[in-house]
């Protein structure tokens, strides 16, 4: 066991995979800065910078994957995928279907996501539920360093495209690069266990589609992903003091999604609260509701999600993103109502 930061763990697992598989290459804007440690170890042929041409380099990544490489393509923030989505939506995601399973594009798209450090509405989106709508993409959203590294390893072994979300509030690299820069006067509400934690000495893949219970409880199931998991854990602890026993389920990946554990958790407590930092409507929280109803599980249900465009001002930003107080309040009214 070693202790690692979140992005350090991802890069470490990635490095292990790169040693084993010479076809893994990494590229994206400014990766010479972001992945300088990989650059120094694997050289510039395998770690490349790109112009600010997301459409071209994402599309190139998909095609390179079709032609035998295993590219890990980085985009500065998930918000900026908006300028290069075609490669993912219409090409990577559809190839397997178009070829009746004959051809796939094993690309990993690494995207920082999420808010809580003051960049506002065009830079702090989550969008995992949005991308999950498109059949053919795997969607991974780890919440701890150990999961992050292990899921990166799995992502690198998938046949098809994987979007790997790296929450900026967990990532020491992005926080330093984006949020705080050269100052020590700011402090973000970084979940400690998410930011740094024990990781295995040698990385082993964690299969996609396996949720995990982070905390057991009998009254209420909090289902979440990414930073939301840590907020849920904090809320569960507070609720515990008030005599409410809350379970916390971390989905870890939403495509595939662990329907079995979702249903089990819901059936156990009969009360489900979804915590999702992505937008509320037409996303993960809705899909979970559908999964429950389809399974014929009747529960009390509520959701704490991001309602609309994230405002810049610190206080407003905090209120907009799912936070512990909100979760506690919703949990209580769900149990009462």
């Amino acid at each position, binding site marked *: 066991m070693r202790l690692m930061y979140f992005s350090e763990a991802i890069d470490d697992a990635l490095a292990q995979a790169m040693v084993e598989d010479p*076809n893994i290459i990494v590229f994206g804007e400014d990766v010479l800065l972001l992945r300088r440690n990989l650059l120094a170890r694997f050289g510039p042929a395998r770690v490349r910078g790109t112009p600010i041409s997301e459409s071209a380099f994402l599309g190139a990544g998909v095609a*390179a994957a079709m*032609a*035998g*490489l295993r590219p890990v393509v980085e985009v500065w923030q998930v918000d900026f995928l908006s300028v*290069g989505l075609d490669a993912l939506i219409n090409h990577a995601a559809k190839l397997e279907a*178009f070829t009746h399973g004959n*051809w796939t594009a094993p690309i990993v798209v690494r995207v920082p996501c999420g808010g809580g450090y003051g960049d506002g509405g065009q830079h702090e989106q989550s969008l995992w539920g949005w991308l999950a709508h498109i059949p053919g993409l795997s969607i991974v959203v780890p919440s701890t360093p150990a999961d992050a590294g292990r899921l990166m390893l799995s992502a690198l072994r998938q046949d098809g495209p994987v979007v790997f979300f790296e929450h900026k509030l967990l990532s020491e690299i992005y926080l330093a690069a984006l949020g705080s820069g050269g100052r020590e006067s700011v402090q973000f509400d970084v979940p400690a266990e998410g930011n740094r934690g024990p990781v295995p000495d040698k990385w082993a893949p964690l299969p996609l589609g396996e949720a995990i219970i982070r905390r057991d409880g009998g009254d209420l199931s909090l289902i979440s992903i990414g930073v939301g998991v840590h907020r849920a854990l904090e809320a569960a602890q507070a609720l515990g003091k008030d005599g409410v026993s809350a379970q916390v389920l971390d989905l870890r990946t939403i495509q595939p999604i662990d329907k079995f554990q979702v249903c089990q958790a819901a059936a156990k407590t009969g009360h489900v609260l979804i915590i999702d930092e992505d937008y509320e409507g037409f996303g993960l929280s809705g899909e979970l509701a559908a999964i429950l109803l389809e399974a014929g599980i009747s529960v009390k249900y509520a959701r704490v999600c991001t309602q609309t465009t994230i405002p810049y001002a610190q206080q407003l930003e905090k209120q907009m993103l799912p936070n512990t107080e909100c979760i506690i309040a919703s949990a209580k009214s769900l149990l009462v109502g």
Partner: protein
Amino acid sequence: MDLWMLYALMKKSRLFEEAVAQLWQRGLISGEMHLGTGEEAIIAGIVSQLMPGDAMAVDHRGTAAFLMRGIDPVALLREMLGREDGLCGGRGGHMHLYSKEHLAASSGIVGAAGPRAVGFALAAQYLRPASVAIAFFGEGAMNQGMLLESLNLAAVWNLPVIFVCKDDGWAIITQPQEAARGDMGERVHGLGVNYVAVDGLDVDAVWSAGSQAIERARTGGGPTFLHNRCVHLEGHFLGYELLRVTRRPFQELPKLTVPVLRSFLRKGGGSLKERLAGMKMILSKLWSTMRDPREDENNDPIIRLRQRLMVDPGRLNEVDQNALTEISAVLSAALVEVTR
């Protein structure tokens, strides 16, 4: 360069696509259908030079390229017929043709061939040294950001890409003078890519320019852009309205003009001057099509090549016969169990 071999490729492609057109007319092929008839010289001039390991990114008009690459024509036709034993199990259709073993992939998204060829070429750099990647696309695509980006990226990474622009002067009903400014050569140069203008009706010229570009790419010289002019004999796609009007004016013209005139006359709206300007644009579209370049035999690359090959009419006849036999066999093989 073997003109006879190129002619055979072009001829077979033409016959194949003409057969496709008939099947489409009979309703056996669904959806849109973009033929490549008229651009065979461009495709043949390039594709005939590809080797195993070379890759191809094709746009919505990819049938000829797939055929000439040596991909099973029966599987190709069955794909268009939507059959389980088609090239892609009937899942793709004519705009989404794929052959993994040939590293050949189509796309119905205008401009997507650019990034795709860049990715293919990137993989070649690692896995198949001295291999190249071709991108086929139209002049309309040269206004699409991702294609422009991909030229620059290919240049920055010095990748073995040949960007093959098939400029037919139309993007559906939009003509270059309405949609683009600046000189194409300058545009391409300004994105760092070597530019060569080619007469796309002359397979000889395409082959030669292609040969240089491919050689350059294979030896680490980076990307080249070949700008080839051509005429699409069936217009944008089968059933293309403007061409229909031109070809059967008595039946088709009223369908178009009556509603337009009715709208022109309706109360409320633009001034007479504005309305007339609008009418003029519609008429000029019709007019451009009426002066149908397809009527000039010189715009058909196959007829042009035949003229040169007439030096040996016996052999020409033989090649024609072989092509016909081959494509007929393809047709009957593909149509087994389909024709009613």
